[in-house]
């Protein structure tokens, strides 16, 4: 080892020396540097032998243990493994814990939704910029879900990875999804109650309430394919956000990776099941306030047809297609795709003919 190493160093010094001589003494003939090279080689060789002997004496003591500090962000393979482990953890949670974490998630998303509504209530900015600013505010909900701990139905579609890997039984995963979905709905309604009681709709000459009404009315007047495809895109992006968050080591990583996909889906106007659980009930309640309807009509510049803005419209026109779309987007486009890429069982298609038909 030692000899090899010193040989390499000799070679390196040789080339360096040659380069130096070429650079500094351009006038000197080519024969001269060769001589110096040879001299250098011999002296170096002698030195290397001596140093090798010294190293042999020292080599008795063992080398110090090599410590590897792994502080990099998790690689995609590790993300998949971690999500897989999360499914196993969630399978052990009791229904009460899942329910209350689901309520938390509903509350968080609704708080983000009301924040976004307030900020975009002023149509002074142009539409695209308003959408982006509101969408960044909406990230409040997802940040609290991811960092603070909560069971969001749409994000939980990602634990389908663990189901495919048999970390969680079919019964448990359906229980988990159902309970967290009910919790999300309850949490959203709690925030609807408090925000309504806080008279937030009366801000800015009822414009905040008017904006909430317009958002809700837009959501219940979607056709089935439009709602479905918007929901597919939405949950694919939410699950992508969850996926990149699992790569993070600290909270700043999580927040910065979240902001882009979440703000992206909100600004694009995609349909999030749990966010709609806040937006549409809020609109249904505000429909009874004549000042709010007047403000909304002033904002839209025309009389509004609010006939679809009912609980029936909420469940049938919005929630059913959005639910199906979110499930498809989360499970097929995100969960199943990543499971296929990183965790699928390795299939062995190669034939080992030589081993099967051995020559005697």
């Amino acid at each position, binding site marked *: 080892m030692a000899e090899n190493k010193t040989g390499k160093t000799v070679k390196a010094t040789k080339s360096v020396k040659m380069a130096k001589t070429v650079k500094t003494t351009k006038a000197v003939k080519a024969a001269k540097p060769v001589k110096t090279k040879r001299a250098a080689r011999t002296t170096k060789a002698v030195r290397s032998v001596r140093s090798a002997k010294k190293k042999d004496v020292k080599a008795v003591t063992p080398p110090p243990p090599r410590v590897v500090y792994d502080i990099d962000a998790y690689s995609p393979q590790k993300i998949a493994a971690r999500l897989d482990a999360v499914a196993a*953890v969630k399978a052990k949670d009791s229904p009460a*814990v899942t329910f209350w974490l689901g309520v938390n998630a509903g509350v968080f998303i609704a708080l983000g939704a009301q924040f976004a509504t307030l900020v975009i209530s002023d149509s002074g900015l142009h539409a695209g910029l308003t959408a982006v600013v509101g969408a960044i505010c909406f990230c409040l909900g997802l940040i609290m879900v991811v960092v603070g701990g909560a069971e969001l139905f749409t994000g939980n579609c990602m634990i389908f990875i663990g189901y495919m890997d048999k970390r969680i039984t079919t019964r448990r995963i359906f229980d988990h999804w159902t309970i967290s979905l009910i919790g999300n709905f309850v949490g959203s309604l709690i925030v609807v109650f408090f925000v309504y009681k806080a008279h937030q709709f009366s801000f800015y000459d009822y414009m905040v309430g008017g904006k909430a009404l317009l958002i809700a009315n837009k959501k219940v007047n979607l056709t089935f394919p439009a709602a479905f495809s918007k929901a597919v895109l939405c949950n694919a992006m939410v699950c992508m956000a969850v996926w990149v968050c699992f790569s993070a080591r*600290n909270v700043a990583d999580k927040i910065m990776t979240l902001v882009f996909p979440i703000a992206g889906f909100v600004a694009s106007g995609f349909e999030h099941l749990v966010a709609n659980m806040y937006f549409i009930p809020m609109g249904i309640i505000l429909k009874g306030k004549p000042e709010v309807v007047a403000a909304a009509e002033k904002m839209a510049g025309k009389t509004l047809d609010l006939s679809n803005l009912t609980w029936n419209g909420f469940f049938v026109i919005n929630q059913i297609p959005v639910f199906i779309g979110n499930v498809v987007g989360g499970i097929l486009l995100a969960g199943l795709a990543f499971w296929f890429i990183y965790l699928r069982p390795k299939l062995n298609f190669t034939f080992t003919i030589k081993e099967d038909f051995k020559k005697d």
Partner: protein
Amino acid sequence: MSVKDKKEVDSISSTTQLASTPFIDIDSYAPKMMANRVGQVGVAKANIGFLTTLALSILAGVFIALGAQLMMMVTHTATSSFGLNALVGGVVFTMALVLIVITGAELFTGNCLIAMSFFAGKISSGDLSRNLIISFIGNFIGALSIVFWIYISAQWTAHNHLLGAKIVIAANDKVNLSFGVAFARGVLCNSLVCLGIWLCYSARNNLDKVLSLLWPISCLIACGFEHCVVNMWLIPMGLILKGNRFVMEAVERVNGGPLDISNLTCAKGFLIHNLFPVVLGNLFGGIVLVAGVYWFVFLRIPKNKKVGPNG
């Protein structure tokens, strides 16, 4: 080789093995660990002496008042668009909570979170109420001291007295709330404050803390929710400034007519109409909705089995 020597050798080899394969956990704290940390912090806060707690809570009051005056300063020009104006005000107000969290000051609203360690049986109800009462008094003193300094500095004359007018109008809005509205706004406000502090328990470094505070705190200020310590600065400021002739002229200019400030009084308007329902709402939002729910989920030991959540 005797048995003793062998044991020593074994222990040495095992320690060297440990040293060669260290377990370094640099990930942000998971919610379960966050709950444990909040429980420990509650015990630590219960053991701080009276004067230290009071001094730390005066600092918290000062920080919140500084944040509130900054928020007023930034948003007082009424020409920019409403939503964006509110958002910018909220973002700059985050300064107050960043200072409090990083310097470890005792904020009344944020301390509602340590009710988790009361629910978990680590501190008594006396410890919890002692901490909350001392920090409430300290916050009040700190906020009033900033009222004094801001008034002396004549900062409210800025922009042709428009800043003073904005403060009077905001204070007047706050004392004219009905009980239910003030309570609901207080609940929403302190839920967001405690959630922001809760997110901070996940953080490993200051960047984490700042970013995790930014969204919840800017939300509660932008959405106009009622924070009792902010009101301890804002409403006394309005009470003082309503006696100034130039400020009231500016109020009339902004309002487009004389403003009814009959409710803007110290005892009835400030303490009874605003602070009382807001403090109740803050306590309910912080202790029941955040600390209670997170205690239930992460720290509660079920009666029939001694295993927490997540096994």
